[in-house]
């Protein structure tokens, strides 16, 4: 009977469920934006600029793609806890702390994948750009523009990773009802309590969000192949 109760919650637009979904999307979208602002320039820098330690940076970024969420959560917890270096900001157990944790989790993914995409494109374009005497800024702009559809796919991958994450946000958010409770932490909590209706309902929403993100990524790819070559 749990699926029926879950459907009831979904179709009755349960206020509690809507609040949880809204907070989840707000946190994840914010984290994706901040991770993109940090990760994409870093990735482009790693792809186009030769500097001492570049290889090490690439190895570290690639390794951080597999960063365990609980380790990120623990690190942010220590940073924001009352005795931590940023404790005075009072951010622990707030949505802001959850955004910070998710940003740290997905920024390396976005940076590493951006570097790979931009570098591959640069290798392809290098001779033509040199022959056309394209300046450095114009090169970066052109590479980012021509890689735009791949970069959107990377963003969506980061969004999907953040949306499905539970370990970090439960540590730094505290899963406080009505304040920091998001879809994944609620599913974990309600499942442990044996109250599966809400958990199943949120699970359905979460899957729908992830499916929608992937469908969007696929659509972007198909559109780009058709219209931009």
């Amino acid at each position, binding site marked *: 009977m749990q699926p029926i109760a879950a459907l009831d919650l979904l179709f009755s637009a349960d206020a509690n469920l809507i609040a949880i979904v809204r907070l989840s999307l707000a946190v994840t979208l914010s984290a994706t934006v901040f991770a993109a602002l940090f990760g994409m320039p870093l990735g482009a820098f790693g792809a186009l600029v030769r500097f001492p330690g570049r290889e090490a940076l690439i190895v570290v970024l690639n390794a951080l793609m597999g960063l365990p969420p609980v380790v990120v959560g623990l690190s942010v917890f220590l940073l924001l806890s009352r005795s931590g270096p940023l404790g005075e900001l009072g951010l622990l157990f707030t949505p802001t702390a959850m955004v910070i944790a998710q940003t740290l989790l997905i920024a390396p993914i976005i940076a590493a994948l951006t570097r790979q995409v931009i570098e591959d494109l640069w290798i*392809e*374009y290098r001779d*033509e*750009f040199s*022959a*056309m*005497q394209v300046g450095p800024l114009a090169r970066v702009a052109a590479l980012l523009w*021509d*890689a735009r559809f791949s970069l959107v796919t990377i963003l969506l991958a980061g969004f999907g990773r953040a949306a499905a994450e539970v370990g970090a946000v439960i540590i730094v958010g505290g899963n406080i009802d009505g304040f920091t409770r998001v879809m994944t932490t609620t599913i974990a909590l309600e499942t442990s309590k044996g109250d599966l209706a809400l958990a199943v309902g949120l699970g359905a929403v979460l899957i729908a969000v992830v499916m929608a993100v992937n469908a969007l990524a696929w659509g972007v790819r198909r559109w780009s192949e*058709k219209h931009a070559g």
Partner: protein
Amino acid sequence: MRDRPSDLPIRFKAVDYRVGPTAILSGITLDICPGEPMLLLGPNGSGKTTLLKLGMDLLTPSGGRLTFAGRPEGIGSRRAIVFQRPVMLRRSVAANVAFALAAAGRAPVPTVVAHLLRQVGLAGFERRPARRLSGGEQQRLALARALARDPEVLFLDEPTASLDPAGTKAVEDIIIRIARAGVKIVMSTHDLGQARRLGGDVAFLVAGRIIERGTSPNFFVSPATEEARRFLAGDLVI
């Protein structure tokens, strides 16, 4: 556009180009001056592409002296190159030409883009994705991008190597028109029929050295070297 400083003549004087211990070009002495097309003939690996890239100032000689109108570095805006396999930007045909115009410091206005596309027979292709064009169409688009620089010298690296006869004819016709408009053509090829059709001067390279120079009729009728005779006879020349 024609009042910009010239890079011609491009003068190679005993130019060498090495990659590590390997000599790609040795002792190249050659003047690229306004006038008839210059064809670089020779087998694969003879150094034709490297010579073109040196002329474009994309590579730095390992030895010797290379000057552009007497200067050690070219101005560049009057030179253009079409590679054997040109890379199309992931944009429309018109956007590819507009990008080349902007890179050359020219306003990428639609009328100029349309004019350049007409010159290479791609009128009506403006909105098509460049990467979905056929090989011959991509070569013509690459020629339009090169012409966007309003070049005085155009380097062509085997531009018809992977094209069928119809595609080859279309590209050759454009090259002839460009040459007649006063643009110096420097083109590498190992297609002897094409070299005969385009005429002009011939520089024959083997193993990184120019071993014979002359006008096209002289080269094809009475080659001076044994290597050239064997090359024209279709023998393997390495």
